[in-house]
């Protein structure tokens, strides 16, 4: 087994870095080409953007612990990898936005930095995931055993990622306003059903079989309901970060969260299968 960043051959590290760059592009491409995301980069609250970047670090450290582009040993390694992923996320975002002409001369530093920084969040997650999904070895070889809290963390990361991808779009708000309260209630139950089916029923690779002695409701409560609750909290955080629920009344906030909670639930379930 290899131990630590410093003992790697430089070539391995460069390949890992290039792979991380590829992962950053793949995972953040939809959002790199979303107009609302560019606007958010300069229009959103600066402190909320700073908080988002700050919270991305523990997220990346956790992701590095469970997967990641290098086999890591200990917190220091995970922290170093988190910063590498963040750097790759910034670089990939800057390169892509530069190519698209979204950033360029004549724009203020605030505008340029904001546009790149907000892309660095999904980009760095993609960089981190690159090894897990695109790495040379089978991800299962390196899958670290996640306990219950680890599973919750993985679901949170998956929910955050998918919710982040759709939250900036106008459609989330529009869908929430088009739906009646009954639509929203149906969507909540559909999200729970889809989530449970994804992990336990559809027999995807990575499906978790339910031990026969543990009743359905026990697994449903401890994993699906908790995962959905985490998804709702992530949706709330993302919507608040993007300033999409400011000055809204509680019923509208809840229905918007429920709309974003659907992709969040799917993301949480998929993350349990993939990571």
């Amino acid at each position: 087994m290899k131990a630590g960043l410093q003992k790697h051959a430089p070539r391995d590290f460069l390949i890992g870095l290039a792979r991380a760059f590829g992962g950053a592009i793949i995972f953040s491409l939809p959002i790199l080409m979303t107009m609302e995301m560019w606007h958010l980069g300069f229009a959103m609250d600066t402190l909320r953007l700073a908080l988002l970047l700050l919270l991305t670090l523990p997220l990346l450290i956790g992701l590095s612990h469970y997967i990641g582009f290098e086999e890591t040993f200990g917190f220091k390694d995970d922290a170093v990898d988190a910063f590498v992923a963040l750097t790759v996320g910034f670089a990939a975002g800057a390169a892509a936005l530069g190519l698209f002409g979204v950033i360029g001369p004549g724009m203020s530093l605030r505008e340029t930095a904001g546009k790149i920084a907000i892309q660095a969040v999904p980009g760095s997650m993609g960089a981190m995931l690159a090894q897990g999904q695109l790495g040379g070895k089978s991800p299962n070889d390196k899958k670290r055993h996640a306990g219950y809290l680890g599973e919750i963390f993985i679901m949170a990361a998956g929910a955050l990622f998918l919710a982040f991808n759709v939250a900036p779009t106008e459609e989330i708000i529009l869908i929430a306003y088009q739906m009646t309260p009954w639509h929203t209630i149906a969507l909540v139950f559909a999200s729970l059903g889809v989530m449970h089916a994804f992990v336990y029923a559809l027999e995807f690779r990575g499906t978790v079989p339910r031990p026969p002695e543990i009743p359905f409701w026990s697994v449903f409560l401890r994993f699906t309901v908790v995962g959905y609750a985490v998804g709702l909290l992530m949706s709330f955080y993302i919507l608040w970060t993007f300033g999409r629920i400011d000055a809204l009344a509680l019923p509208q906030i809840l229905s918007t969260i429920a709309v974003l909670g659907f992709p969040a639930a799917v993301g949480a379930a998929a993350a349990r299968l993939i990571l």
Partner: protein
Amino acid sequence: MPQLERQKRKRAGGTNEAAVGTQSRQSPSSQAADGIPTLEWVIGAVGFLLVASVIGFLVYQALTGDRQPPDVQLNIESIVQTTNGYMVHVKAVNHGGSTAEGVVVAGRLLEGAVPLERSETTVDYLPPRSEKKIGLFFTRDPRNLRLELRALGYEAP
């Protein structure tokens, strides 16, 4: 091996990976009779409460919430001088029970009964019981004239 099973054994048998797969069936105090740690039940209960209260609130809204048409109220927040004239900050509040889309807000400056200037802007979405801040530009100082604000119309989303 099923993941849940592995997890249980890991918790029951010790804290490191070496314990995974062993058949030990110890019962530390933090574990309920069915082998599921208390922590998982506590988090499960919190998650259940959160989801149940969201559903409960939505059902309550569905049963009691009003679907009255939008009722837009416009209030002048402040008037500031800008490079090309003046800007009037307006707060638009929807007191009705449904969302108004594409609300056109118009402001008119009058001297006595003579209209001098007109500005308008559009609010994308104005949800019920919610507010939006808007700005209207004028070349003359609205503080010395009469300013009329009006919502012209909207579309149901």
